[in-house]
């Protein structure tokens, strides 16, 4: 099982490295633009947020947004492609158990999230002096965020029938949730009604914990910020494994 797992992860890593112009370069350019526009041009007019420079404030959000998008994109596109070209049959006829297949694809998503997250952080370091309050909090938040969205991407791919279906969720669900999860602002500045709605957004908790790891500021208690995504990971993992074992959209019913 270890060999099968290693094979899937290696294959996934090679896949996104092979197409680095599509996978690694665009997030770096996007990040630079965010920093230039929101941080450099507008940030000086905004001043401070939660007691820190606006440019410093948005850095954790930009990195986490990249991790979310890349982890999701990797599993959704990779798994969908295996369905599209029927190469998933290579796994179906083999002795690899479903949970190893799932773990392999999710690990691939985490690897891409980490690789591109680090590349983006490196790019940011040219614009801002990156502060680190707690490396452990950053690492844990990264991991649970990445795993959660890699799982969500996997489930999206299971149900996707066309290429459009794999871009709907990132564009119409993930991006708005990320923006509304406090990427560019603290939810403390929102009116009560919107603040109450924001607490149902799981990305808000991850964003808050990530900011705590970098800047030492946050609105939610850390245990709560970790618990919410962990519960979601368990739920998503169970759903994804069930879908795989039932062969939904993989085995003809």
């Amino acid at each position, binding site marked *: 099982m270890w060999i099968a797992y290693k094979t*899937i992860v290696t294959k996934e890593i090679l896949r996104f490295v092979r197409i680095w112009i599509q996978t690694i370069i665009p997030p770096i350019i996007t990040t630079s633009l965010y920093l230039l526009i929101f941080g450099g041009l507008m940030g000086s007019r905004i001043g401070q947020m939660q007691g820190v420079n606006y440019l410093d404030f948005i850095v954790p959000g930009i990195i986490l947004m990249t991790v979310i998008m890349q982890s999701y994109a990797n599993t959704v596109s990779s798994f969908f492609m295996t369905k599209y*070209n*029927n190469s998933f049959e290579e796994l*179906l006829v*083999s002795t690899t158990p479903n949970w190893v297949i799932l773990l392999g694809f999710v690990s691939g998503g985490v690897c891409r999230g980490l690789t591109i997250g680090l590349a983006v952080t490196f790019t940011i370091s040219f614009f801002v002096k990156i502060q680190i309050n707690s490396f452990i909090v950053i690492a844990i938040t990264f991991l649970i965020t990445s795993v959660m969205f890699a799982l969500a991407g996997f489930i999206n791919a299971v149900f996707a029938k066309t290429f459009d279906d794999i871009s709907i969720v990132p564009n119409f669900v993930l991006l708005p949730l990320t923006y509304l999860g406090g990427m560019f602002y603290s939810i403390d500045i929102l009116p009560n009604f919107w603040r109450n709605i924001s607490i149902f957004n799981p990305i808000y908790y991850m964003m808050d914990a990530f900011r705590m790891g970098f800047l030492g500021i946050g609105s939610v208690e850390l245990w709560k910020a970790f618990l919410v995504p962990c519960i979601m990971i368990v739920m998503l993992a169970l759903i994804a494994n069930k879908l795989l074992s039932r*062969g939904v959209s993989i*085995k003809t*019913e």
Partner: protein
Amino acid sequence: MTLALSTENLTKTYSNNLKALKGVNLRVEKGDFFALLGSNGAGKTTAIGIISGLLKSTSGEVKINGLDQNKHINEVKKMIGLMPQEFNFNPHEPNMEILINQAGYFGISRVEAKIQAEVLLKKMELWDRRFDVAQSLSGGMKRRLMLARALIHKPSILILDEPTAGVDVEIRKSMWDYLTQLNNEGITIILTTHYLEEAESLCRNIAILNDGVLVEQTNMKKLLLKAKRQVIILDTVEKLTNNISIANCDCEILDDTTLQVAQGENTSISDVVLSLSAQNINVSHLRSSQNRLEALFLSITS
């Protein structure tokens, strides 16, 4: 008799209510070269899909080398190598990687897989293309790559779904030779094909599916003996006249020097040639107008 594969009342009804298999009982002996024939939509690919674990059956039982497929899923999967009809690899992946990854899915280490991949790629004459991506290969090369992939984990049963479709004559012949060699080494081969001469020349036993039902399962020689009337075409040296007749045979003059003869029961080709010779007509060439298995296949499935 030791069976490599047996199915008991295998049925498959798809979600759209299409009954693809209606209680199929297949028996394939160990070491056999077995042909599973049927027209399009007869249920061959469904049967193969279930046997290889790609599809779930609706009911029935599949046993591989005596092991129940549902109870010994991993052992059974290790015993089977599948070469499907459609290309089902990642076309952007290098050929060598496709084989090594497939071995990895079966728990074979990269080092061991590399050795086996080299042997197979050389055998398939793809070694020079090992670093190329699969989409750059021709149709025949892709088929050979899939055959190599099916063999990477050294299965004891090889299932080939239309292995030579789209392959040129020369490569088809070399694939036949290789498959015969594998069979001689003890690998049980189950073959589906639309080239009936392929089944006739390679396989010892045969089953014919028609509309999800097994309508024939027998020895190839026995089946061919059922072909009572064979139609042959004769090219003659002399011009033919209208009063040609051969006992127990139906004759039809196709042109001045071409005669079609439907051989009657117990009439040999020698009888036909001798009879013509007695009528001062010498035969220069002789060929079969239709493959015997093809004629039988059509009569069984029509």
